[in-house]
Each structure stands twice: as structure tokens, then as C-alpha cells.
């Protein structure tokens, strides 16, 4: 599902509500997915700058109790073109590399519900292609994608929510 709308229309708020990061102040919201099955990509990469890419994914892998976390982290880093930088501190990463690492973190635990807030921000053409390929490999996952530029995903989306 594409979530579109102008600045301040509530796209980010909606995604954070669905993730459980905000509690609704009115109305009801029922997200029938356990916390550990949500993949959330926000405006921040949610990684520690003083840790390496691999250490960050290893920490999340531990917290999500992934049985083969190292293999899974390695495979994602390779897929998103970060394998060579796996042992570098995140503080040295460019904006695009940070977004790629944030995507690795989001997909690490194979979530059933993807909440992606402007996922193409900072990505180059190759990064955009990689993200499209990753989404295409997850036909069973539900994805809410908030974006200013819905054209790239319009053919794949089954619904669109336009906030005003």
C-alpha cells in the first residue's frame, strides 16, 4: 500500500502508529502482527555510529533471536553492496550507504509487515533497483510505503492511501 500526501499530512505518524512507536490519542488501531514481525524504516537509520555495519546487524540479530544471524547479516550486506564496508564504523558511511544499511536492518528478521518511510531517500539508481528487487522477493509480506514519489512503486501497489 502506498501512503502519499504533502508534508505534514501524517504519513510518518501513521507508520509510527502502526509500528507501536506512538499510541493513538483517539480512535482505534488494530495491527494484528507481533512486534518482532514488523520491519520499520524511519527517517533515522536506527544504527549506532560507533559500531560497524556487521556489529549493528549482529546486535539486532541477537535481539530478534535469529538462529543464523551472522549468515543472514552477511547475505543482506552483500545483496545491498555493503559487504566490503562491513567492518567499517557506520560514522564513516555516506548517506546512501546508511540508507542501505537501514534497509538491511529492516529486512534482517524477514518481517511480515514492512513500514517504509521514504525508503528511496539517499539511494542511488543501483540502490533503488536493489530495494525493488528485495520487495519483489517478498510477495507474502504486507508493505506500507510512505513516499513523495509514488511512481516507482505504483505498478506494484495494490492500494493507495492519500493523506491530506
Amino acid at each position, binding site marked *: 500500500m502506498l501512503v502519499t500526501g504533502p508534508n505534514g499530512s501524517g504519513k510518518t505518524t501513521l507508520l509510527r502508529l502502526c509500528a507501536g*512507536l506512538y499510541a493513538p490519542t483517539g480512535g482505534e488501531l488494530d495491527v494484528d502482527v507481533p*512486534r518482532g514481525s514488523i520491519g520499520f524504516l524511519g527517517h533515522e*537509520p*536506527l544504527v549506532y*555510529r560507533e*559500531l560497524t555495519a556487521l556489529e549493528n546487524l549482529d*546486535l539486532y540479530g*541477537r*535481539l530478534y*533471536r535469529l538462529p543464523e544471524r551472522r549468515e543472514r547479516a552477511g547475505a543482506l550486506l552483500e545483496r545491498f553492496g555493503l559487504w566490503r564496508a562491513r567492518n567499517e564504523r557506520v560514522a564513516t558511511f555516506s548517506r546512501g550507504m546508511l540508507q542501505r544499511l537501514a534497509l538491511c536492518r529492516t529486512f534482517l528478521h524477514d518481517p511480515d509487515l514492512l513500514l517504509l518511510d521514504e525508503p528511496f531517500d539517499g539511494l542511488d539508481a543501483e540502490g533503488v533497483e536493489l530495494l525493488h528487487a528485495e520487495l519483489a522477493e517478498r510477495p507474502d509480506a504486507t508493505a506500507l510505503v510512505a513516499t513523495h514519489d509514488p511512481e516507482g512503486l505504483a505498478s506494484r501497489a495494490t492500494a493507495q492511501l492519500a493523506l491530506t
Partner: protein
Amino acid sequence: MSAYAADVAALARKDLLLELRARDTLPAMLLFVVSALTVFHFALPDGSSERAETGLLWIAIVFTALLGLSRAFIAEREQGVLDGLVLAPCDRSAIWLGKTLGVMVFLVLAELVALPAFALFFHPLSWELVAAVALANLGIAAIGTLLAAMAAASRARELLLPLLFLPLVIPVVIGGVGASVAANPGSFLAFLGLYDAVFAILCWASFEYVVTE
């Protein structure tokens, strides 16, 4: 190792690794506590009572802890990582416990320098004082970590943390000074132990509500 203990260990290890890389909290705590004790040494008149000297040690410990606590959630706040930790399926109290252990390690390391410095400047250490400091560390780290998490979510975080933390650690200072100089240190040590237990349970149980809006 249970899953909960593994989560706590992973989070505490991460904090120690971050400090090892950034080295921006422990050196500041060490420098502060030694500087404070040096200032107190020259500020206190000759012939001051043991109670006054011990009181100054506790002031130095509390403010050193405050310095460390003010940076406890800085990495999570600046990079929004707390959202990532909160979304993980682990028990959210593990985040508090892991951070509390990290804070306690920094505090103990600062005290390993502060206590010999105190013995050098003022009077020899007693076992009661060392026991009181060890007990106080748990209470300070437990309540301080919870308040640091609350302050991290606030705009006035630099103001909020000391305003909340200092009144709540007054019992620690009372218990610590009492255990160090009173004729019956046992009751003061028991008081510190009770304070630790009550606040550790309260903080453990309430952390989830602090990190979710």
C-alpha cells in the same frame, strides 16, 4: 543463558564497546571526580570532621554519576536507535537492565580512582564506606538510568535529569554518610539495600512505559 539474560548481556556489551570506541564518558567522569576531590581537599578547613569529609565524597560520587547518566542515552537519542531497540521483540526492561549495568561499570571504574584519592586527601577508607558505595551504585544506576531515558525524550533534557535525579538520590547520601560514620552502620547499609531493591523493581517494571509514547 536464558534469552532475557542474553539480551541484557548483548545490550550491556554494546554500551561498553561504544565507550571503548568513543571514550567520551569515562574519561570525563574520572577527571571530574578527581578534580572535585582536589577542590574539596583545599576548600575544607583543617580539623574538619570525618562526617563532613565523607559527605563531600558522596557529593562527588553523586555528581560524577550524574555526569555519566547525562550521556547514557546520547547514542540512542542522536541516532534514534531507541526506536529500533523498542521495536525488537525482547522484553523492554532488558534495555533498562543492560544500560544500568553499563552505567554501573562506569561508576565502579570512577570509584576505583575516587576512593584511593579520597583516602589520600582525607582519611583512610573503612569497610563500611566501601560497602555503602557498592550498595549505592546499584540504586544510583537503577533510578538514574530510568530518569536518563525519560530526560532523553524531553527537549529540556539537560535541565530535567538533575532536577529529577538529585532529589531521588538524597536517601542514598543519607544512607551512605550514615553507614560511613555512624556507630551502627548495619542499619544504614540495610536502608541502602532496601532503597536498591525498591527502586530497582520500580524502574524494571516501569521502563516499558517510559520508552513507549
